[in-house]
């Protein structure tokens, strides 16, 4: 597996039957409501920050990177959405985009083993904290909005996605901060490998809210600035190559994670990337595109320094920075994966190349995924 950069590599048809492949993707992001908007926005030089305080009320800093035009009732209909939270809605719209084509017709056959895994740090923090606030301030402590209670359960988004599309396979929600998207990817990889699922909707998401902004603001370490927050959802369709219904866009060669136990995030990222490259059977010099989380603060700086030391400079330049969409927290790693796929799609030279995504989180988690990019845009999955 020491394929040199210049060599041609196995096309999708030659993948082993049990190879995990990504066969579809979408991204709701501060660049826009869908994959096309994400691809178009990626690489624009300006920040997507807007004055969010007009919608949310007082914020520690007025700016945030919101998914523009994200109107829940418009996107999901009026029925049953009255109490729906933004996080679940992001996940549901993303799942619609993967499972239905532009005409709303089914784009992927699902069965009783179609799985859903969603990475999310805290569910809908806005819904949860609003319920707490009502309990503390209303005339009686149980005067809370009952319809919001299920929505304030941490696994609501994944469950709502299953209800919407009738997906009865393994349904899981994972928390891991900025690493959430990679933990979800590895979870799906393992369960597909063990035959527990036939295919997977896998992604991670974050909603922007005043509650989140204030909690992040007070949590910031002394000497650091409050992060510019973003939101969004990156979601992927995962299948095993031998049973894939759609053309493979990328092979997932390795997903590794570690925990920084010594408050040395650079060392943890370095070890994790080396481990992932080893597992994937590729050399650091072969990496064609890499996308770090660009997390704010010390951990993000350590991540960048570690990748600078490990990887070819042109690989790091190939994927536009994620800084323009803010710190998208639990959504980050999935949006990074989406960015790598978007870059691959518009560059025919990407076919057969290696891409890498890393994540690092305040709570100590680090992660790295290694992909082999397989298809140019013409061969892509859902439009």
């Amino acid at each position, binding site marked *: 597996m020491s394929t040199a950069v210049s060599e041609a590599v196995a096309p999708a048809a030659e993948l082993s039957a049990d190879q995990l492949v990504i066969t579809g993707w979408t991204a709701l992001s501060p660049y826009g409501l869908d994959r096309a908007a994400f691809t178009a926005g990626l690489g624009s030089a300006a920040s997507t920050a807007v004055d969010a305080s007009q919608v949310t009320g007082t914020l520690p800093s007025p700016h945030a990177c919101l998914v523009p035009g994200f109107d829940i009732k418009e996107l999901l209909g*009026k029925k049953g959405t*009255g*109490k729906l939270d933004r996080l679940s809605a992001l996940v549901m719209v993303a799942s619609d985009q993967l499972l239905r084509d532009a005409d709303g017709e089914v784009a992927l056959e699902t069965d009783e083993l179609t799985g859903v895994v969603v990475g999310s740090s805290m569910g809908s923090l806005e819904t949860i904290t609003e319920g707490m606030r009502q309990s503390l301030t209303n*005339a*009686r402590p*149980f005067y809370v909005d*009952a*319809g919001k209670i299920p929505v304030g359960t941490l696994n609501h988004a994944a469950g709502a996605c299953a209800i919407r599309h009738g997906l009865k396979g393994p349904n899981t929600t994972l928390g891991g901060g900025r690493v959430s998207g990679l933990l979800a990817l590895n979870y799906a990889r393992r369960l597909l490998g063990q035959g527990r699922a036939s295919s997977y909707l896998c992604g991670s998401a974050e909603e922007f809210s005043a509650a989140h902004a204030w909690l992040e603001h007070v949590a910031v370490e002394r000497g650091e600035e409050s992060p510019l927050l973003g939101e969004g959802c990156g979601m992927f369709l995962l299948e095993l190559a031998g049973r894939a219904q759609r053309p493979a866009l990328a092979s997932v060669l390795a997903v590794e994670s570690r925990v920084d136990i010594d408050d040395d995030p650079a060392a943890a990222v370095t070890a994790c990337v080396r481990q992932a490259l080893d597992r994937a059977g590729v050399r650091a010099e072969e990496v064609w595109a890499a996308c770090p989380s660009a997390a704010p603060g010390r951990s993000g700086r350590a991540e960048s320094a570690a990748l600078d030391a490990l990887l070819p400079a042109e690989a790091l330049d190939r994927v536009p920075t994620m800084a323009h969409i803010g710190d998208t927290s639990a959504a980050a790693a999935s949006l990074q994966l989406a960015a790598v796929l978007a870059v691959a799609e518009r560059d025919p030279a990407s076919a057969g190349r290696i891409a890498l995504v890393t994540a690092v989180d305040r709570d100590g988690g680090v992660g790295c995924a290694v992909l082999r990019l397989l298809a140019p845009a013409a061969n892509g999955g859902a439009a």
Partner: protein
Amino acid sequence: MTTVVPDRLTRIREIVAENIDQDASELSDTALFIDELGADSLKLIDILAAIEMEYSIVIDMEELPKMVNVEATYQVAAAAAGW
């Protein structure tokens, strides 16, 4: 059956409408929540909780099965509030 106070009935109709995603103007006071409007027990709790908050009253959960439509819900609220 207590005498119906129109303002309160209107408000309860609005609360029900809000919680089952209907237009208050289109909501009949006799339409059955579960059988005709597709509500479930969670929605009924939603309505009960919203009425409790609106009028600062407490309605026993045992009353839930009686709340079959707007009219009956009004009566349950009236009994709890002593209207």
